[in-house]
């Protein structure tokens, strides 16, 4: 491969292009009219505009992307995550156009892309699954009937879903109609497929996933687990590897199950097998994500591998250069997703301009981002600004490094999930490892962040007033007449 187009935007497009450049390959960026000044466009060797801001008219326009590939002599497409990354029809069209799709086969994507087909595919391998129905429904009455049978609360999930979209928890029969309508509508608009299914909502679940990597020669390995239990709105905010509850023996069983799931659909490239883990540490297969995950950096930090590089090598027909026995966990890695959201107001999007944007730096600190100071976060796409990752020899040290990195990360002009991150990494439940996906529901109230902010605001007020009084004393009439109204202090 000599030239790869990255069919994505923001931090992931930039991260993929860095590896492409490292491998001596040319990169092509795509962008919408809202994204002309994004770093991924500036970094690329070539870049083409796909159309207006809404993703349906730009980043989701597969035909246009393929046409550009032909025009520019592109021989590989990396889809990143989101957008077209799990669209089997697109992958098929790319392949048919004689371009390499850097990801799994359209066949594997089709099977794992449908949660129902996925359940069917892994059935013969005796992999444990959550109770529920394995057919799609749209009928509310039928849904209520099923929910009564398996017991509330239940979870409505889009068959084609992912990232919390088209997913709703229903606590009682009265809420079923509204939640079904919303889930179906969201599933239709997000994935073009309105079919949903219902399963038992496991209480106190942890979300633990296994990263797999497979070449075209039947070699499949797993790169250990990622713990992704700290979520808000069913979307991950904090991830880590390894998990504090997974023993070596459990890791081996989960890893083996994940490898079987991958083999059940002749999977190739990187993929993630998601499991729910209950309070007795039983694990259940949830789904397989047929893409590079947002949280892949934590796995890279503890394995020393570059997953994008592995994807490209596999796509161009190379064998994996290592076996399962060669892989070891080195230290501990944590990730905080920095979203433009207000943790004090229900995590609602907080759109604005990054008036100050300064990243933390240091050994074992990694920031994957796609914005720069002065840029505005557009409303059309996911509100993620960056991923802040820390790595150290053990969990305690990685947590301390993360807390300092959050302090050193300066973002002004909008609110972010960083104060929430501090809350999590300082919380006893997180530190002790005794938490599940209800972490936010069980422990988080905005008041706890507000209290801390108020205490700091008071200190700021006192020190400012002290400074003010000192200044008043010092000021001579001459200094008062200075033409500069603003006195800038050394930073």
């Amino acid at each position: 491969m000599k030239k790869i187009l990255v069919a994505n935007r923001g931090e992931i497009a930039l991260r993929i292009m860095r590896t492409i450049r490292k491998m001596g390959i040319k990169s092509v960026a795509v962008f919408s009219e809202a994204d002309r000044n994004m770093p991924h466009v500036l970094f690329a060797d070539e870049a083409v505009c796909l159309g207006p801001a809404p993703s349906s008219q730009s980043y989701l326009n597969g035909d246009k992307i393929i046409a550009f590939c032909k025009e520019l002599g592109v021989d590989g497409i990396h889809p990143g995550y989101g957008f077209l990354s799990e669209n089997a029809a697109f992958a098929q069209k790319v392949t048919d156009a004689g371009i390499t799709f850097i990801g799994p086969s359209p066949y594997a994507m089709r099977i794992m892309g449908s949660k129902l087909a996925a359940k069917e595919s892994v059935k013969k391998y005796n992999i444990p699954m959550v109770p529920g129905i394995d057919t799609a429904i749209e009928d509310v009455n039928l849904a209520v009937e099923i929910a009564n049978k398996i017991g509330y609360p239940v979870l409505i999930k889009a068959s084609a879903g992912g990232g919390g979209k088209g997913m709703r928890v229903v606590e009682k029969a009265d809420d079923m109609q509204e939640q079904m309508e919303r889930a179906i509508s969201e599933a239709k608009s997000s994935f073009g497929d309105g079919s949903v299914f219902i399963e038992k909502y496991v209480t106190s679940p942890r979300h633990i996933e296994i990263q797999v990597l497979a070449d075209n020669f039947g070699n499949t390995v797993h790169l250990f687990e990622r713990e992704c239990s700290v979520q808000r709105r069913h979307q991950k905010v904090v991830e880590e590897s390894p998990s504090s509850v997974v023993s070596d023996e459990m890791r081996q069983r989960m890893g083996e199950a994940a490898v079987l799931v991958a083999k059940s659909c002749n999977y190739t490239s990187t993929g993630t097998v998601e499991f729910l883990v209950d309070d007795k540490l039983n694990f259940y297969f949830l789904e397989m994500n047929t893409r590079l995950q947002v949280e892949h950096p934590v796995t890279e930090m503890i394995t020393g591998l570059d997953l994008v590089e592995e994807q490209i090598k596999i796509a161009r027909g190379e064998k994996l250069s290592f076996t399962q026995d060669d892989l070891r966990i080195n230290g501990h890695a944590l990730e905080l997703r920095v979203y433009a959201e207000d943790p004090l107001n229900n995590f609602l999007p907080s759109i604005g301009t990054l008036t100050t944007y300064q990243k933390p730096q240091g050994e074992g600190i990694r920031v994957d981002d796609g914005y720069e100071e002065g840029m505005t976060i557009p409303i059309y796409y996911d509100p993620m600004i960056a991923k802040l990752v820390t790595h150290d020899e053990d969990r305690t040290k990685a947590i301390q490094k993360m807390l300092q990195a959050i302090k050193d990360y300066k973002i002004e002009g909008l609110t972010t999930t960083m104060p929430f991150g501090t809350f999590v990494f300082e919380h006893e439940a997180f530190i002790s490892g005794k938490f599940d996906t209800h972490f936010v529901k069980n422990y988080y109230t905005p008041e706890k962040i507000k209290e801390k902010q108020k205490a700091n605001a008071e200190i700021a007020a006192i020190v400012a007033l002290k400074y003010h009084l000192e200044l008043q004393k010092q000021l001579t009439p001459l200094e008062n007449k200075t033409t500069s109204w603003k006195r800038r202090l050394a930073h």
Partner: protein
Amino acid sequence: MAEVKKEFRVKSGGYDFAFDSKDIRSKDIIRKADDELHILHNNRSVMVRLLDTDAAGKKIKLEVDGERFEVEINDSLDLMLEQMGYSAASSKHIKEIKAPMPGMVINVAVTEGQEVKEGDRILILEAMKMENSIIIHADAKIKRVAVKAGQPVDKGQVLVELE
């Protein structure tokens, strides 16, 4: 040297604090550098960095424990002026529902003149690919529907007016 006790209202991080000059003089604050002060407050040991100030030292930007604050200091004269400004402003009360975030109106569930009950859905607002039901929190009558399906709205934009 005896000094008159002056009163201040200090705005910081969305909070209002009232101090007098005597309060402040009693605080344990030391200067570490031109732009660094150290405070012991409620036994907390905190380094504070000064980032910016105006000439009068009334608008000051500083950093406490990694968090940045823009502090505004008002003395008694400022407070008096502000109070006069406040009393001159008329208070106009409009009942309306505003967009809690920027987004796209997916559909509107109410029409003008319609009586709605607490918990009824007014409209669906899509932001960041999530659909959010905008619910009314009291019984009311819709006076005006200010948006239509497919329309993008800004945070704080009026969606419907109520009678």
